[in-house]
């Protein structure tokens, strides 16, 4: 039987396991496996419908509306999305540092640098802020697209784009909420090395969400 979830991870050591690993870590990887298939279905649909929209706006091409004569520019904004991609990439660095800080919480810090690196609250905040910044970029992108004539109902591109990136954004949002919960625990009773597994599981989820964005950025934004 796996131990209780948040009070302490220590009870895991009281329960026999075949592999000597906490069951929750196995479960999160199984979950990540299912997410591979989830996002593959979304990405496949986006790719299937690539270039097949009957009306614009289009991602990389200009489109002239035959009824109104309006010319709609390619709607994707590569510079802005590159910036948000960079922010999300950095959030993974922050997450990894947060985990390291928790794992090494009890070790003595010999200098200022180590103290900064060892500040789990700092890095959890940085991750959450980076994630929220990414979401801000997404919100900006979504609203400006709608403003420019692309909604989820406009065409195949709109439907598949917003659904794919929307699902991703929902995953980021859940991740941010998870991080904030960890922060709350850190403030309440402090996160120490005995909580490593908890933070590790959150980190695995967070990195995976980042990795999905790497794929989306390339397939949706960069490849025409």
């Amino acid at each position, binding site marked *: *039987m796996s131990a*209780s979830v948040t009070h302490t991870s220590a009870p895991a050591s009281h329960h026999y396991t*075949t592999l000597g690993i906490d069951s929750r870590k*196995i*479960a999160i990887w199984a979950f990540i*496996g299912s997410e591979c298939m*989830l996002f593959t279905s979304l990405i496949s*649909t986006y790719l299937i419908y690539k270039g097949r929209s*009957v009306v614009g706006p289009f991602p990389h091409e200009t489109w002239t509306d035959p009824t109104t004569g309006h010319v709609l520019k390619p709607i994707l904004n590569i510079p802005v999305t590159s910036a948000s991609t960079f922010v999300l990439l950095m959030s993974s660095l922050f997450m990894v540092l947060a985990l390291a800080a928790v794992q090494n919480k009890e070790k003595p810090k010999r200098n200022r640098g180590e103290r900064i690196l060892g500040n789990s609250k700092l890095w959890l905040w940085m991750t959450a802020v980076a994630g929220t910044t990414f979401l801000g970029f997404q919100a900006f992108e979504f609203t400006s697209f709608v403003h420019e004539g692309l909604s989820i109902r406009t065409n195949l591109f709109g*439907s598949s784009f917003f659904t794919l990136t929307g699902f991703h954004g929902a995953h980021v949002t859940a991740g941010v909420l998870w991080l904030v919960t960890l922060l709350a625990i850190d403030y309440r009773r402090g996160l120490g090395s005995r909580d490593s597994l908890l933070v590790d599981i959150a980190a695995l989820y967070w990195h995976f969400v980042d990795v999905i964005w790497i794929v989306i950025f390339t397939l949706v934004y960069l490849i025409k």
Partner: protein
Amino acid sequence: MATTAISAPAYGGEYSGEQSGLWSWLSTVDHKRIGILYLYTALFFFMFGGVEAVIIRAQLGAPNQHLVSAEFYNQLFTMHGTTMIFLAIMPLSSAFFNFLIPLQIGARDVAFPRLNAFSYWVYLFAGIFITIPIFFAVAPNGGWFGYAPLTTKPYSPGLNIDFWVIGLQILGVSSLAAAFNFLTTIINLRAPGMTLMRMPMFTWMAFIVQVLLVLAFPVITIALVFLLFDRSFGTNFYNTVSAGADPLLWQHLFWIFGHPEVYILVLPAFGLVSEVLPTYSKKPLFGYPVMVYSGILIAVLGFGVWAHHMFAVGMGPIADTFFGLTTMLIAIPTGVKIFNWIATMAQGAIRYTTAMLFGISLVALFTIGGISGIMHSSPPADLQQTDTYFIVAHFHYVLFGGSIMGIFAGIYHYFPKIMGRLMDEKLGKIHFWLTFIAMNLTFFPMHFSGMLGMPRRIYTYDAGQGWDLYNAMSTAGAMIFPIAMAIFLYNFFVSRKRGEIAGSNPWGAGTLEWTIPSPPPEYNFAKIPTVTSRYPIWEGKEVDHADARINAQEGKTPADLGIVMPYNTIKPLLVALGLVIMFCGLITTRALIGVGAALMIFSLYSWLLSPLEPEHH
């Protein structure tokens, strides 16, 4: 062979601390109780789906009948399929996953007991959600595979399909959660010495099924999301009319899920039969490694055959050839299993118990279903067979002749372990023979009516096309099922209270679950065994017998043994309820979405922040 004479009570033991009462069931996290809940609920839905089938067969019994309207007929066959697949067979398999896996691997429970309870409650609530509409004649009516664009708003404007989409979406959550749970359990909670290649074959098949679930369900989740979005938000995924959507998108996504799904439906029954046949042949399963590898191969290949459901849509010669080839290939590992089962029985000391009869019938009936299956694997041949009753015959032979017969074998075999008493063998045999006759009488004629061109999903037909006799035979056969089921249910419920006391190993079986009392105590094993072979009871050495003696002791409470049990908790039920209410809000009042979400999130936080079990050391 430990068949100690003990006074095993009916379920709900006599030692102090054993729980009883409604609340104990609502708040249980014990895999054995959850398994029993699945069993009862799934048997109920099995009968509900059976009633739908009986009405269908009554309507089709003779030409040009109008017992039901065409519209209601659509609801009947849709719900019959949906109910049987998602509310009956899968949960019946879950009943066995729940009850058996921890016992077979020597564990005290699954990896995540509360998540386990959650899976059940989600299933129950979703099952109610998707079943109630038929009482108001708004049941799903687009076929169990809900092809879009037929199921998009322009062509299915009513609420029917919304119930279907949401119901299936919720059921997916239940199945996925359970899959993560059992996967982790099998990987991480096996007793010392139980290597993967020493696991009982049922657990192996269950393992493979969890992998299939993890990989296949996300795909149908997305297909359903697209349909839901199209219907609710006006997106264009299946909008072939004005947006240029591809009419095949739904079909591909659905069958990428749908084909692994049929292996999800049949592999557990294969696993059960792989426990039953050796027991009543007094021989270990023949070719254990080959059975494992063929199961794995079926799962892997199962992801490469999906478009054989689409041979008639015009995919082109390359796609047709590829999928025809892979479909023919997948017959090989499946056929290998049949041979291994036969070899298991050969020269065994066969006892024809009811469980054994059902087990043997699976070998025979599934083979017939497999033969019609291989006939479909050729695209040109399938052009004639597809969408006719020939296909209906095929899948009922593999699903009824395979999954259901295997599940009944499992029920008769494991009833003593679950309930502590034996079912009546005479009644069991009557149930078996009635079922066997009914099954063949109902479905064999469909090969002929199908070959003669009778299409699927038609609510009536004209006389004189050569179909009349076969339909009459099928209908006659179908009417026998209720009688058989009534006998089964009578046997089941009476034996629960008054059956002969079973003891820990009434059948002389060989695996771990038979070393502990029937029904097992809350904690399963007083002492976690050390395993040194595939059949610990038959082949185990001294240490295994010692464990068996300790484990066969009656009347020990967890406290006696210093075992810590998890708390009962209502939180999984509340989270499940919140989830379902949230989904309900999508088609009723939007306010419910908020209410459901609030209940779900609040209960979820409460669950995550409370310990599974009391602190110890």
